[in-house]
């Protein structure tokens, strides 16, 4: 029986998961790594930390699953998209990876929008923004010319890990699309954009379909990571695409709500809805469909930040349970405290920050905890409403990401959205990646077959209508204050904070 390994290189940490051909999870291991914020608005990680985390986790995963490295049929990697690793011509890492949550390229984006915005939108369906790869490259060229000079190839995080496993440099359509350098209809690198911006095309990796085998684990990597030489490694794809697939969202109208470091709302659609700011059209793994996505850069990270900032029990997993219990004692509305979770700006407005409004002397810590959960739910509803304005429709959502483990948060989100929420038994990107591997090596006939055999729903949450009505009033306050705060944060930025 073939076992399938899925790996996810996420924003907060990495995961390894192994399933058998019935989709039963044999092991699941994760480890956090550091994000450094060298200046306000910057966010970087060291690719070496990803490797070390994997190297540490692999033996644990094999031990728990009772498998040897040779029992793995194939490895498929998913990862946070848009983040970029710069390599020199020997394949060495030139600088820390710039994460997609980084906002250093505000000035570059202004220029890209002004001078190239229309062309980029036409070619990629996307407008320039600070969270995508191209502005980072332009920033590096301007601020770190020595690094740029030596850059021989760029890779996204999953491509980097695959490269370290196999020696093969490549990427897939979806990650390529996320760079702002991809011709979305032609499915190839955009020579038009590269020419206009003077980006040498030879630094861009070859683009392959996600479910194709890209190479095999080489002997050096086998020794370093503890894998079996010759294990097939697939091209893989973005974490989002893996999650949507792995949680079973493969038909038009099916919605996905992700509560991870970042949060997003995705709805599978039959056609692309390109154009409007902050709503993104991406290829779906099912090649005839798309999904429409809008997101926030601070979701579960806001809860984690609150934990790390205000709870002394640093890093203990039981703290979240304690926080949930505190928040559950407070009625919907958190006594009037409103939290805006934009700790790292928002995708549309890099100047935004986080805030707590409406605080009174009677408020205790539990009100703050609940306000964080509710504020994040509001930020996600805001995302959905942008899509609904285009005509996108979704009746129910699959909840995924670390935050979905909180039953209180599931309830709050269901009440805020006024929709049914489904909790898939497995939803991690690493699970979708593993299933994708199964499609790639022929264990499953196709995506539908894999979903039918492997995806299970663990819980269904229906909204409480009176809570939904109350949240509606409060959501108006959330939106009205955000409009005001946009202006204030611009002023704050001008004071050079």
């Amino acid at each position, binding site marked *: 029986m073939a076992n399938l390994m899925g790996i996810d290189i996420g924003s907060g940490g990495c995961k390894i998961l192994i399933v058998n051909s019935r989709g039963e999870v044999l092991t699941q291991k994760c480890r956090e790594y550091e994000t450094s914020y060298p200046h306000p608005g910057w966010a970087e990680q060291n690719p070496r930390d990803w490797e070390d985390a994997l190297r540490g986790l692999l033996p644990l995963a094999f031990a728990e699953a009772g498998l040897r490295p040779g029992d793995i049929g194939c490895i498929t990697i998913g990862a946070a998209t848009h983040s970029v690793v710069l390599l020199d011509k020997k394949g060495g890492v030139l600088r820390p990876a710039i994460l997609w949550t980084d906002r250093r390229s505000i000035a570059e984006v202004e220029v890209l929008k002004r001078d190239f915005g229309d062309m980029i939108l036409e070619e990629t369906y996307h407008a320039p923004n600070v969270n995508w790869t191209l502005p980072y490259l332009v920033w590096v060229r301007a601020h770190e010319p020595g690094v740029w000079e030596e850059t021989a190839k760029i890779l996204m995080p999953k491509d980097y890990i695959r490269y370290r496993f196999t020696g093969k440099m490549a990427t897939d359509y979806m990650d390529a699309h996320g760079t702002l350098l991809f011709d979305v209809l032609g499915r190839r690198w955009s020579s038009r954009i590269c020419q206009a911006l003077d980006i040498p095309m030879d630094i861009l990796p070859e683009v392959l379909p996600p479910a194709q085998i890209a190479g095999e684990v080489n002997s050096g990597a086998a020794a370093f990571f503890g894998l079996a030489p010759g294990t097939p490694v697939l091209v893989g794809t973005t974490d989002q695409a893996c999650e949507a697939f792995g949680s079973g969202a493969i038909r038009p109208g099916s919605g996905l709500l992700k509560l991870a470091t970042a949060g997003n709302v995705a709805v599978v659609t039959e056609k692309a809805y390109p154009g409007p700011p902050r709503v993104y059209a991406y290829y779906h793994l099912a090649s005839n469909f798309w999904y429409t996505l809008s997101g926030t850069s601070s979701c579960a990270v806001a809860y984690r930040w609150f934990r790390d900032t*205000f709870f002394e029990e640093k890093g203990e997993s039981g703290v979240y349970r304690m926080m949930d219990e505190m928040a559950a004692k407070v009625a919907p509305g958190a006594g009037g405290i409103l939290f805006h979770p934009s700790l790292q700006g928002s995708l549309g407005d890099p100047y935004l920050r986080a805030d707590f409004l409406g605080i*009174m*002397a009677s408020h205790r810590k539990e009100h703050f905890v609940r306000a964080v959960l509710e504020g994040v739910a509001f930020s996600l509803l805001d995302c959905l409403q942008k899509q609904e304005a285009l005509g996108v429709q979704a009746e129910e959502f699959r909840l995924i990401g670390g935050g979905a483990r909180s039953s209180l948060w599931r309830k709050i989100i269901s009440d805020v959205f006024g929709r049914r929420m489904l909790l898939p038994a497995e939803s991690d990107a690493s699970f979708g990646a593993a299933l994708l591997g199964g499609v790639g090596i022929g264990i499953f006939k196709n995506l539908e077959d894999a979903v039918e055999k492997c995806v299970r729903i663990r819980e269904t949450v229906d909204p409480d209508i009176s809570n939904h009505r109350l949240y509606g009033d409060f959501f108006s306050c959330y939106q009205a*204050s955000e409009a005001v705060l946009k202006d204030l944060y611009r002023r704050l930025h001008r004071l050079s904070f």
Partner: protein
Amino acid sequence: MAKKEYLLGIDLGTGGCKITLLDTRGQVLGEGFTEYETRYPRPGWAEQDPQEWVKTFRETLRRVFEETRRHPSRVAAIGIDGSTHNAVLMGKREKILRSCIMWMDQRSIRQSRGLERRIGKEIFRITFNKVNPTWTLPQLLWIRENEPEILEKVERVFFTKDYLRYRLTGTWETDYIDAHGSMLLDGGKRRWSEDLIGETGLSPGVFPPIRKPAEICGRVTRRAAIETGLREGTPLIVGTSDTAAEDYGAGAIKVGQGIVKMATAGNVCLMADRPYPTPAGFNYPHVIEGLWYIVAGTNSCALANRWYRDTLCQGEMKEARAAGKAAFRILDEGAEKIPLGSEGLFFHPYLLGERSPYFDPFLRASFIGATARHRKEHFSRAVLEGVAYSLLDAQRVLGGLGRKIKDIRLIGGGAKSPLWRKILADVLGKPVWVPASGDASFGSALLAGVGIGLFSDPAEAVRQGVRYVARVSPDARAHKLYQKYFPLYRKIHDQLAPVHRLIYEAFAGDPQTGS
């Protein structure tokens, strides 16, 4: 008879009871403080239990005498003050009819609006002050409308200090400063205004006789002597409001001197030669005949830091217990490491709405401008800075009257923090003097000395008794930075005020609010 050698000052402040024991030259022999609870039964409400004041007073008194190894029977005179114009309503057989609605209570918003609309100008003319929920008048009107059965039973009205004095002497009176704060006094004539009392539905006879703060008005009864250890017959002066006592005790006795008080509530006071009626500040007579002081008060000052500690700093409190030091010190040590401006994190301390300069009961507190980089220490500093901005905001009201404050005497619990003093001096851009004892109880004890003729007059008592422990000069560079940030502090207030109104409306009528 043993020589009488001590002066005792009692302060029933908003946060707790403070007692100061002086020798006859005005030097501090000992002091004690005990907190009592403020209850917030609903958002915006704030109440205290008068019995709790008495109980806390007795405990504190016993401790002070134990710790100083002195004997209470050798007290020569007692001065007393309290947080101002909180009405204690007494019915038959000395029964307290309801818990005391405090000056920071915001429940009487609607009544204040009604009064302002109908007779606001008239009130301003008679009392020199503008109607808002802090005053006794609108609060009594709230009781009239919501608890008429209580109002019917009122036989006597006391203010905070007057109730405690009553329990010691059995006498019933108040001073002209506390009375002025009720919004029921004709300020020019120093007489109860029958027209304004008429608004409350109470009869003028339930309000106490009005006397001068330093007058001897009663003596400790036998029963009180047994309960407290004080000698029967020890004289008490009428006393006054906490603010009047502390301005005096901090040595502000000349025109142009300023006081900043960082207590539960904050305020900025300016000594003036006459009342300067302004809708943005309060005018009160000073204990020195002919002098007035103008107060611009904020609602949440040290309260904000205490609330912050109690609400969000359980970790530091635990650490403090283990290390045997104050949690505030640990918070200050963290805040000290953060650059001026808290890297863009702003705190607005309107936990109980705000008085000067906004007089907006709908305002609420906020933290604005957090990023992933912001840690606990940023929040700790932002709270200190936010409170300092709010005091600058209040001080500008007085500046607007055209009388510049020359220097500041800093008092209240917040003055104990060297970091907070520094931040305040830098935000205000004025030299800050810290009196050795900035407590109202110290001022009250000095005033008791005046009452029994120990000092020739109030000014002489200050010359003999007041010492300073620190003088902090503003740093020019820091002041410049704060001046650059302050307009944004203002702007954030301006922009969020309507949002907070919206939040209030979204929750109006929802009994779960604040649960």
